[in-house]
């Protein structure tokens, strides 16, 4: 600690900070425009000049390290005069006569007021630059208000890691530019808006909300796009969300957000929103069901819709047994709602046929990690990894587009701490620019690649033998298999050079701890579980488990896919991964959820056998094994592999209930359509990819007659129980909830890993990572410290297996699928946010320039992809991101633009996850 004197008073301050920061910590005001605590000091505006005893001239406090005994004056008459002069000079080049009338005064205007500087006197008469000069639909640029503080330049580089903004020219012509002086989007801007967030003058502003009026209230909540779980404030005016603003107190993301989170909120009040319950006319007049989708929709009351639903489900249950009904829960909905879905399936209907989209994204992770370690979730937190890892490996995750805020945190770690980054991906994704080593393996060769790396590690004795001996089992069997993967063989399988394989293994051995990240590139294969087991082997081999900065870190896709799994939205487990095959668990839930029938006997409850997965349920519609589906907020008609087949299955269904916020491709096949609400209209919790449980707070009232999904589910459950004349008698058997917090209390009572979670604790700002054992437990940010959940970590020998379908003469291209920054999954939300659609208006198909040249395809040209299962159309995007022979399509657009017309429904034998990442296709240009 140093002693310093500020304005004659003594203070004790930290040694490693600047004077400005010390003064800020002490609450002593020193004005500044170019400085921000999140950014490197710049010393540009000189407003923070202070007088320091012993220095001849004033010094900029933002650049001045504190020294012991320093004597500083922050507010002398000379300084005040100098600051006034600086403000006047800034205003000479400033022009803002068209200022958005609703905008609060910016930092420059506030300082002018403080120092008594007459703005209109000094301001320019005419603008120097075009006002609103950039076509970016999210970021409004008005250089007339720019004071060249370079906060945007630093924010873009240091926070987002994108380096779009720069400074051009000299002297009077000096100005900020994007790229080489081009529009933002051409300069590779990711439209995250972080530059706007740090701009002190409004030169950069949020375009969608530029004219928005001051909000009535701000409600802090959790983003409903991806699994990062950013927090922000919804700004509400007249019961409408008018703007999203950053909340500097957000633990996960600070003021940083991505384009979808910050700007993709227009869907909340979209005219397409479902506002009333609807049923097909045939259900009202009692006539037999016409072919799917043909009977007209009739708007009805909630009572009618729910009574029909309850009666039909009970009828089917009586006729064909409870297992003739399947339920698809939703990773977009809250933990509370997923718990109710699981309870509705198991307690009320009496089937384990409940699943959700995790089947399609991380079911192989959940299975694989459960086999290796005993629990299948991200082991470490992002902050821990950013601060403590020495190396990061990203394999099969396009992190900067799919988890943008985590992507930029990884970029920050590379920039700030020089963390070594290894990226392995068949596509040269953006984050590869930050990689020490980029490996371009062929799709579907991940097991071989990782085994090859481990082969070299073992050959050189670089493994952490002490860790293996102490904490793992089955090592020798594993070693024997890895023996079979020498570099020459691996190079041949993967297409990665022997030299690169060696370099990577060496880097892994030298840079510990290393954290491994993965996503769909690993999981969506017929070898999904094998891929995950192999990565688990790697981290055990290197001793990177159960320590800060290490771990296995599957990035979960949907905002609450972690929670939906945790809440028992899976056919084989109750909430908290309690197996349905375990007698003690069955007994516990039999008691908790017990109901009594009219004759006084207790209703039989559970099957001892796991239910059907979603990838089994839908095909079972075609065979009649499953007759009814209850679908909560999912859109299998866009997201399932081989959707042409999915469509036929849905047509065969007897009774399909869809609870949604928009009419979707799937709802065309529904018999009852129940309007749910968005995250802005309900309370609850989401669990992010780090296992962090976070509050979702209601900001606006539901649109029309729509109701929070948990209310609908509870109402439906009560009606089914009534029809069956059953009375809830178990301690957690009832359905009379008055708020979401009550449901969470019930979850805590039956789910050991959520035992200490409550809305009250979360509301008080507690950061809880499950397992949270009880009300006093602080949660578990890092898993597997000291011992693995299953005891010993188990090495699984894994062998390389070819993907199910590889290119041949007829279908010569290999297609891989995924997502893009500006859209979200089936696109129901992002395609209804106009500005997102402006930037990315249609399905693009990425094609390598060499292939494009051979086929005579150019950018923006219409192309057609055909596989054995169907065809899709899109616009060509010629790019070196994909290698020769590889094309990439996304599934954000429905119908004839959907890449899932082509994908193959080949499943991983254990996790039943489809192989979205590899199929063979034919590429043709479409004559216009």
């Amino acid at each position: 600690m140093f002693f310093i004197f500020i304005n004659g008073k003594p203070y004790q301050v930290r040694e490693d900070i600047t004077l400005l920061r010390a003064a800020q910590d002490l609450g002593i005001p020193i004005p500044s425009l170019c400085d921000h605590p999140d950014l490197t000091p710049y010393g540009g505006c000189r407003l923070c000049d202070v007088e320091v005893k012993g220095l001849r001239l004033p010094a900029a406090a933002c650049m001045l390290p504190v020294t012991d005994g320093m004597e500083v004056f922050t507010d002398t008459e000379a300084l005040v005069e100098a600051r006034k002069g600086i403000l006047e000079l800034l205003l000479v080049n400033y022009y803002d006569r068209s200022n958005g009338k609703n905008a609060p005064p910016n930092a420059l205007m506030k300082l002018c007021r403080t120092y008594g500087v007459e703005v209109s006197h000094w301001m320019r008469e005419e603008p120097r630059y075009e006002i609103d000069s950039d076509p970016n639909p999210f970021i409004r640029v008005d250089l007339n208000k720019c004071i060249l503080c370079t906060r945007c330049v630093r924010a873009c580089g240091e926070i987002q890691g994108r380096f779009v903004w720069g400074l051009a020219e000299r002297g009077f012509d000096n100005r900020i530019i994007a790229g080489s002086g081009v529009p933002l989007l051409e300069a590779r801007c990711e439209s995250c808006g972080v530059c706007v967030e740090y701009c002190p003058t409004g030169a950069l502003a949020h375009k969608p909300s530029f004219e928005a009026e001051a909000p009535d209230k701000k409600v802090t909540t959790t983003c409903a796009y991806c699994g990062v779980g950013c927090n922000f404030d919804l700004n509400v005016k007249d019961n409408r969300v008018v703007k999203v603003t950053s909340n500097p107190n957000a633990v996960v993301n600070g003021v940083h957000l991505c384009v979808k989170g910050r700007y993709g909120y227009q869907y909340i009040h979209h005219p397409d929103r479902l506002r009333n319950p609807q049923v097909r006319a045939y259900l009202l007049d009692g006539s037999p069901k016409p072919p799917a989708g043909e009977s007209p929709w009739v708007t009805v009351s909630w009572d009618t819709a729910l009574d029909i639903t309850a009666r039909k489900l009970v009828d089917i249950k009586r006729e064909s047994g409870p297992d003739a009904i399947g339920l698809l829960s939703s990773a977009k909905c809250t933990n509370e709602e997923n718990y109710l879905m699981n309870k509705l399936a198991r307690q009320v209907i009496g089937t384990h046929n409940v699943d959700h989209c995790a089947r399609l994204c991380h079911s192989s992770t959940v299975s694989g990690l459960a086999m290796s370690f005993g629990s299948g979730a991200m082991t470490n937190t992002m902050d821990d990894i950013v601060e403590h890892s020495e190396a990061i490996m990203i394999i099969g995750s396009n992190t900067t587009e799919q988890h943008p805020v985590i992507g930029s945190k990884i970029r920050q770690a590379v920039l700030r701490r020089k963390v070594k980054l290894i990226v392995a991906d068949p596509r040269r994704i953006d984050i590869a620019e930050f990689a020490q080593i980029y490996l371009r393996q062929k799709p579907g060769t991940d097991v071989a690649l990782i085994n090859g790396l481990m082969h070299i590690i073992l050959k050189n004795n670089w493994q952490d033998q002490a860790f293996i001996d102490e904490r793992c089992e089955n090592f020798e069997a594993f070693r024997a298999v890895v023996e079979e993967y020498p570099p020459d063989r691996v190079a041949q399988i993967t297409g990665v050079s022997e030299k690169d394989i060696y370099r990577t293994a060496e880097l892994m051995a030298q840079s510990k701890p290393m954290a491994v990240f993965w996503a769909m590139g690993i999981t969506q294969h017929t070898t999904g579980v094998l891929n995950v087991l192999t990565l688990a082997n790697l981290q055990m081999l290197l001793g990177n488990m159960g320590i800060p900065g290490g771990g296995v870190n599957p990035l979960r896709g949907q905002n609450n896919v972690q929670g939906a799994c945790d809440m028992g939205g899976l056919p084989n487990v109750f909430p908290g991964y309690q197996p349905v095959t375990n007698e003690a668990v069955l007994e516990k839930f039999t008691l908790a959820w017990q109901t009594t029938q009219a004759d006084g006997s207790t209703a039989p409850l559970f099957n001892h056998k796991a239910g059907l997965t979603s990838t089994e349920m839908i095909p079972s519609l075609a065979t009649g094994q499953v007759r009814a589906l209850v679908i909560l907020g999912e859109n299998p008609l866009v997201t399932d592999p081989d959707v042409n087949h999915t469509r036929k299955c849905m047509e065969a269904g007897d009774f399909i209930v869809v609870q949604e916020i928009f009419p979707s491709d799937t709802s065309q096949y529904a018999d009852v359509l129940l309007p749910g609400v968005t995250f802005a209209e309900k309370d609850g919790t989401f669990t992010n990819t780090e296992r962090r449980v976070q509050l979702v707070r209601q900001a606006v009232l539901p649109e029309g007659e729509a109701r929070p999904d948990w209310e609908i589910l509870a109402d439906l459950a009560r009606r089914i129980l009534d029809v069956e004349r059953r009375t809830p008698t178990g301690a957690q058997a009832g359905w009379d909830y008055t708020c979401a917090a009550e449901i969470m209390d019930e979850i805590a009572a039956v789910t050991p890993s959520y035992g200490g979670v409550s809305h009250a604790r979360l509301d008080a700002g507690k950061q809880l990572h499950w397992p949270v054992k009880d009300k006093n437990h602080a949660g578990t940010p890092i898993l597997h410290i000291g011992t693995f959940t299953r005891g010993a970590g188990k090495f699984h020998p894994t062998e390389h297996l070819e993907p199910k379908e590889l290119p041949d003469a007829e279908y010569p291209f290999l297609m891989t699928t995924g997502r893009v920054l500006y859209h979200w999954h089936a696109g129901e939300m992002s395609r209804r946010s106009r500005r997102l659609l402006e930037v990315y208006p249609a399905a693009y198909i990425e094609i390598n320039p060499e292939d494009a040249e051979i086929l005579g395809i150019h950018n923006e040209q219409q192309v057609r992809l055909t596989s054995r299962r169907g065809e899709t159309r899109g616009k060509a995007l010629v790019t070196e991101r994909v290698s020769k022979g590889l094309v990439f399509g996304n599934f954000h657009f429905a119908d004839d633009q959907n890449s899932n017309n082509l994908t193959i429904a080949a499943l991983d034998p254990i996790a039943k996850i489809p192989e979205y990442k590899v199929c063979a296709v034919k590429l043709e240009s479409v004559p216009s």
Partner: protein
Amino acid sequence: MTIPAQPYPLTGRSFKSLEKEYPLNDPLQKAIIDQILQSHCDTPGGLMVILNEIQSRIGFVSQPIQEYVARVLNTPVSAIHGVITFYSFFTTEPRGERILKFCMGTACYVGGTPQLVDKATQLLGVSPGQTTPDGKITVEVCRCVGACSQAPVVVVDEQMYGRIRPSKMPALIRDVLKSCEDASGG
């Protein structure tokens, strides 16, 4: 909104599309640029050296060159553009075979450089910063060249001419044009 050059804005332009633009579409010029990049890409602070070399051997650092260098060096193009526009030594457009620079230092200015510039503009039909349509001569004004005793001064490439009067301009320009022909003819 305008359609960006690349449909999906994140990807940036492909090498292939940059290689279709002048001067990267000229194999000789591209080879020179590649050689410069290769010999200095590992030099710390090598960007300045690379840009200098490209300026002197190619004659300009146009936007496609800036993007290409950025891609190869994995450096933000905004940083490269910042350097190019900061130093007046760099130009972003091809310049003429000969550069005619008029010193605007105080002594030369008082000594009559503005009149010389007017005369040259009249004779060549281009104003400072521009190049004659035949690509022979670029007219520029510059800061003090440190030869105040000779004011006003005109610099042709590296060669300095002192005490020039407007009446001497036609002869000077004739000589410059002739030297261009000599260079191309011989």
